[in-house]
C-alpha cells in the first residue's frame, strides 16, 4: 500500500517539476514578445526643418497623416547653421515610415487658424498642434518606388493636394480681393473652392479646385466671375439688393456658368479670365480708347456710355498724358453693342449742368458726366483704335433763324425750342445786337422740323407755368419739365401752308404777350381815348359793347400837350362799325355804388370787369358821322355821366340862382320840385361883384315849365330848428337833402310865364310856410 502511494506521489512530483520548469520559458516567451511588440512600434527618426517650432513639445506633439497618428516629436534643436530654423526630430512609427520617409513628402504645422474663409485646426486648440504629412504620390505602389529621404524642410502652409480627384483651374484677375478658401459656386451651389492665390505678371492668379463630381460643369467657354457678397445696385429707377451665400458674404467667391451643351474642359492648363462681376462678361474684352484734350470730369467705374439713353458701357480706366494734356479714356462696351463701333460713332462728352432745361435728363444728371454715343453712318465701317471724344454736340442739319427781343430772357445756350411741346431745335447763342440793346437769339431748328417755321410763326418764351386766371376760369399751361429752371422758347405757326419769307422773328417774352399779339393781329381798328386819369384803365382791359367783348386797351400814354392820358384801344372790325362821332366810352370798372339816404343801389358789371375793370361804349346816334382810326374820344367815368351829359346838353332850361353862401351845394346837387328831382346844379361860381355865389341850375326839359318868373328857389339843405318848451322841431325837406344838400323850387299858385334861359333868381335860405301851401296847376303849353 505504502509503496503504491509513494509511487503515485513520485509520479505526480515529476510532472510538477516539469511543469514548473516550463513556466519560466512561457514567461520568457510572453515577456520577450511584449517587449518585441513595443520596440517594433518604435520606428525610426526623421528630421524636419521648421522655421517656427512654436508649440512643439517633445514626446507629445504627434505627426499625423490624415488625422492618424504615425509618429511623435522626439527632439527639437536649433539649427546650427541658421538660428531661425529648428530641427525637429520625429520618431515615425515603423509601419508609416515607408509612407512618409520618401522623397517629396511635405510636412507642415497644423495649428488653429481662423481666416475669413475658413476656421481650421480647431481640434488643435485642445489636442495641441501637430505636424501633418502628405506624401507626394497617391498610391502605395508609386510611393514605394520613390527614393527614401530622412531630412525634410517643412512647408509654411497646407499645400494643395494636386493628387486629389477633381479639377484644378487657374483664373486670371486684375485684383486680388478673394481669399483662399472662398467658395466656387455654380448656380449658387458650392462645387469647389479657391486653393491658391498668387501674383504673377501683374495679375492675380487664382487656383481653384472643382470637386471630382462637378468637374464636368467646367467647359471650354465657361466664364468665371467674382461674386460679391452683397450686390447693391441703386439707381433712380430702384434699388436692387442681392445677397449671395453666407460664405461669400465675408470673403466673396467665384461663380461660373457654362454653355451646358458644350464639351467638358479638356485642356486643364488653360487660364481663364476672372471677370469682376457677372455683368462684365457682357462687355467686350478690349477697351475702346477715347482721346480728348478737354477737362472731362469722368469717373472711373462710374461714368457711363449711353446710346439713345441706353447704357452700353462704362469708363473702366483713365489716363492722362501730361505733356500733350491729352486724356485717354478706356471704355468698356457691351458685346451686344459692338456693332455701334463700326458705324462711325460720334462720342460726345455730356456734362450735367444744373439747369432746369436739363431736368428732363434727370437720370443722366444723377449719373454724372457721361459719354453719349451717336451713330453717324448706317454702313459698317472699320473699328478705329482711338476715337475722339468730342465736347460739342454733333452737327445736325439745321435751319438757323434769328429772334429779336427787347426783354431780358431767361434762356441759355442749348435751351430747347418747342413746337407743341416737342423739341424741334435749340438756342445756339444769345447776344446783344451790336448797335442797340436789342437781344438777338440765334436759334437752330432741326432740319426735319424746319417746315414748321414760316412767316406766320410767332415765337415766345415759355415760362414754366402759365397761370391764366380770370374770374371765368383758371387755366394752367405748363411747359415741358425742362422749362422749369431755364425758360424755353416755343412757337406757334398759324398757317403751316404759308411760306417762309423772313428769317427774323420777334420773340415775345411770354405766352401772354404772344396771345396778346395774336389778339391784335385780328382785324380791327384802333382808337384813342383821352382820360383825365388812367387809374381805372389798365392795359389789357377789355372793351365791351353791350356786354360783349369787343376789343382791348392796347396802351396808355401821357400826352404832354393835352395834359391827359391817351389810351389806345383796339376794337374788332365787327364792333368798330358801331363807333362814330356820337360814341361815348365809359368805365365799367368795379362796382358802382349809388348811395343815397333813400336807398343803396349797387350796380355791378360782370364779375370779370368787377375785378379787372373795363371800358364800354355806347353810340347815341347810329347815323352820326364815322370817325377815322385814332380818333380821340373823351372818356366818361360811368354810364350815368354819359347820360347826364346827354340830358344836360339837350333842351333843358338853365337858370342862375344867387346864394349868399355855397353851403353844401355843389355840382350835381339836385334840384327838387315837390321833392322830385327835376334838375341839377350844373356849375357854380362867385359873382363878379363878389356879393353872392352864382349857381347855374339845369332843369330838365320835361320840367322846365315848372320854372316861372315868379318861382322861388330855396336851399333845401338848410333846415329850421325851433327850440321851444315843447321840444325841438326840425324842419327840412328830406333826409337826403339834409346830408347831400339840394335846392328846392316852388312856384306860386298864380304862376307867371315861363322863366327865360339864364334868368337869375335869389336863393333863399329859409322856407316860408306859405310857400309850401302853393299848389299851382299848370296847363301844359
Amino acid at each position, binding site marked *: 500500500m505504502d509503496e503504491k502511494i509513494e509511487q503515485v506521489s513520485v509520479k505526480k512530483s515529476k510532472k510538477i517539476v516539469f511543469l514548473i520548469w516550463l513556466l519560466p520559458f512561457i514567461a520568457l516567451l*510572453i515577456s520577450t514578445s511584449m517587449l518585441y511588440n513595443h520596440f517594433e512600434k518604435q520606428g525610426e527618426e526623421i528630421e524636419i526643418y521648421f522655421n517656427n517650432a512654436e508649440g512643439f513639445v517633445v514626446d507629445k506633439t504627434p505627426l499625423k497623416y490624415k488625422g492618424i497618428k504615425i509618429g511623435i516629436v522626439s527632439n527639437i534643436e536649433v539649427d546650427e547653421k541658421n538660428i531661425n530654423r529648428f530641427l525637429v526630430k520625429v520618431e515615425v512609427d515603423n509601419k508609416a515610415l515607408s509612407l512618409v520617409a520618401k522623397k517629396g513628402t511635405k510636412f507642415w504645422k497644423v495649428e488653429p487658424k481662423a481666416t475669413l474663409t475658413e476656421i481650421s485646426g480647431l481640434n488643435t486648440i485642445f489636442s495641441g498642434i501637430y505636424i501633418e504629412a502628405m506624401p507626394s504620390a497617391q498610391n502605395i505602389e508609386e510611393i514605394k518606388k520613390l527614393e527614401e529621404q530622412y531630412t525634410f524642410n517643412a512647408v509654411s502652409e497646407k499645400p494643395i493636394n494636386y493628387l486629389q480627384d477633381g479639377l484644378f483651374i487657374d483664373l486670371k484677375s486684375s485684383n486680388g480681393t478673394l481669399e483662399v478658401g472662398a467658395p466656387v459656386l455654380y448656380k449658387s451651389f458650392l462645387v469647389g473652392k479657391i486653393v491658391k492665390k498668387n501674383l504673377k505678371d501683374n495679375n492675380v492668379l487664382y487656383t481653384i479646385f472643382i470637386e471630382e463630381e462637378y468637374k464636368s460643369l467646367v467647359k471650354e467657354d465657361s466664364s468665371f466671375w467674382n461674386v460679391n457678397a452683397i450686390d447693391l445696385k441703386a439707381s433712380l429707377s430702384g434699388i436692387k439688393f442681392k445677397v449671395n451665400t453666407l460664405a461669400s458674404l465675408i470673403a466673396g467667391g467665384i461663380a461660373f456658368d457654362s454653355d451646358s451643351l458644350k464639351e467638358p474642359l479638356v485642356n486643364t492648363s488653360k487660364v481663364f479670365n476672372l471677370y469682376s462681376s457677372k455683368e462684365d462678361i457682357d462687355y467686350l474684352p478690349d477697351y475702346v480708347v477715347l482721346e480728348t484734350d478737354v477737362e472731362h470730369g469722368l469717373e472711373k467705374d462710374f461714368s457711363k456710355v449711353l446710346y439713345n439713353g441706353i447704357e452700353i458701357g462704362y469708363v473702366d480706366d483713365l489716363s492722362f498724358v501730361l505733356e500733350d494734356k491729352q486724356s485717354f479714356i478706356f471704355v468698356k462696351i457691351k458685346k451686344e453693342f459692338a456693332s455701334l463701333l463700326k458705324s462711325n460713332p460720334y462720342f460726345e462728352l455730356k456734362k450735367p449742368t444744373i439747369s432746369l432745361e436739363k431736368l428732363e435728363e434727370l437720370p443722366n444728371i444723377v449719373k454724372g458726366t457721361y459719354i453719349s454715343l451717336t451713330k453717324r453712318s448706317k454702313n459698317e465701317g472699320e473699328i478705329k483704335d482711338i476715337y475722339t471724344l468730342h465736347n460739342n454736340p454733333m452737327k445736325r442739319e439745321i435751319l438757323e433763324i434769328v429772334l429779336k427781343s427787347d426783354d431780358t430772357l431767361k434762356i441759355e445756350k442749348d435751351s430747347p425750342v418747342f413746337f407743341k411741346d416737342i423739341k424741334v431745335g435749340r438756342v445756339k447763342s444769345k447776344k446783344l445786337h451790336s448797335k442797340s440793346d436789342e437781344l438777338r437769339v440765334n436759334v437752330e431748328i432741326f432740319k426735319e422740323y424746319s417746315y414748321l417755321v414760316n412767316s406766320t410763326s410767332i415765337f415766345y418764351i415759355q415760362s414754366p407755368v402759365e397761370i391764366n386766371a380770370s374770374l371765368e376760369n383758371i387755366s394752367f399751361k405748363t411747359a415741358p419739365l425742362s422749362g422749369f429752371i431755364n425758360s424755353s422758347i416755343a412757337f406757334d405757326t398759324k398757317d403751316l401752308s404759308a411760306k417762309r419769307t423772313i428769317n427774323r422773328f420777334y420773340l415775345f417774352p411770354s405766352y401772354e404777350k404772344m396771345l396778346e399779339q395774336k389778339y391784335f393781329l385780328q382785324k380791327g381798328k384802333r382808337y384813342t381815348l383821352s382820360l383825365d386819369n388812367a387809374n381805372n384803365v389798365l392795359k389789357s382791359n377789355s372793351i365791351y359793347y353791350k356786354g360783349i367783348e369787343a376789343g382791348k386797351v392796347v396802351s396808355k400814354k401821357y400826352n404832354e400837350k393835352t395834359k391827359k392820358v391817351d389810351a389806345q384801344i383796339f376794337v374788332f372790325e365787327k364792333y368798330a362799325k358801331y363807333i362814330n362821332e356820337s360814341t361815348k366810352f365809359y368805365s365799367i370798372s368795379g362796382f358802382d355804388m349809388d348811395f343815397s339816404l333813400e336807398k343803396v343801389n349797387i350796380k355791378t358789371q360782370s364779375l370779370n370787369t368787377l375785378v379787372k375793370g373795363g371800358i364800354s361804349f355806347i353810340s347815341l346816334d347810329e347815323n352820326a358821322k364815322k370817325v377815322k382810326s385814332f380818333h380821340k374820344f373823351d372818356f366818361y367815368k360811368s354810364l350815368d355821366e354819359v347820360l347826364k351829359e346827354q340830358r344836360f346838353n339837350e333842351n333843358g332850361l338853365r337858370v342862375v340862382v344867387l346864394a349868399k353862401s355855397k353851403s353844401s351845394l355843389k355840382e350835381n346837387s339836385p334840384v327838387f320840385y315837390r321833392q322830385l328831382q327835376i334838375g341839377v346844379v350844373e356849375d357854380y361860381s362867385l359873382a363878379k361883384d363878389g356879393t353872392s355865389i352864382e349857381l347855374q341850375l339845369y332843369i330838365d326839359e320835361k320840367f322846365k315849365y315848372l320854372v316861372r318868373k315868379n318861382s322861388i328857389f330855396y336851399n333845401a339843405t338848410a333846415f329850421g330848428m325851433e327850440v321851444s318848451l315843447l321840444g325841438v322841431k326840425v324842419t327840412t325837406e328830406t333826409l337826403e337833402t339834409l346830408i347831400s344838400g339840394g335846392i328846392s323850387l316852388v312856384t306860386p299858385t298864380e304862376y307867371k310865364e315861363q322863366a327865360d334861359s339864364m334868368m337869375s333868381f335869389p336863393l333863399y335860405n329859409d322856407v316860408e310856410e306859405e310857400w309850401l301851401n302853393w299848389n299851382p296847376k299848370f296847363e301844359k303849353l
Partner: protein
Amino acid sequence: MSYKSDKDLGLVLCTHCNSVFKVEEKVCNKCNSKLKQRDKYSLVKTLNFTIIAIIFLFPANILTMMEVTTLGVIEKSTILDGIVYFFETKSYLIAVVIFFASIIVPIFKLLVLLYLLYTTKYNKIYLARNATRYYRIIKFIGKWSMIDIFVVALMIVMVQFGNLSNITAGPAAIAFTVVVISTMLATESFDTRLLWDKD
C-alpha cells in the same frame, strides 16, 4: 548548532494543526491533512517563480503602465514616468510610496528570495536565523505589493469620461501583476524548514 529538528527526530509536523506524528504517518489523524516532513520541490518552485518574476520585471518597467487619453491625446506612462511625474509635481509622499511599492519592494523581494535559495541550497545554517527574518518581511509585504495595480485599477474605474479623459491599463500592468503574483507564489512555495536542516 545544538537544536534538533523534526527531521532529526524522525517526526513529522502537521503544518495545519501543529500535531506531531511519526514520519511514517501520511495523513494527520487530527485534521485529516496530508503530512509531509519536507517539500521536496520547494526550492525548485521558488526558483522558478523567482525567475518568472525576474523575466516579467523588464516589460513591467519598460512598457506602458497607464495610457491617459485627454481630448484625444494619448499619454503613455511607464512606472518610472509616473514616479517622475509625481516627483516633479512635488507629491513626494506619493512618489516615494509608488517608488517603494513598484520598484524597491519587488526587487527587494526577489533579492531576498534569491538569498533564501542560496542559503538553503548551500546549507548555510549560520545564516538561517537571518534568512528567516527576511522571509517574514517579504511574506508580510507580499500582500501590499499589488498597490500599484490597485492604483491603476482604481484610476481606470474612476477616470472614464469618454473622449474627454480616459485611462486604460497598459501591457506593463499585466507584466507587473505577473511579477507580484509570481513573487508571492515564490514566497509561498518556500519551505522555511529547509533552512534549518543540517545535512
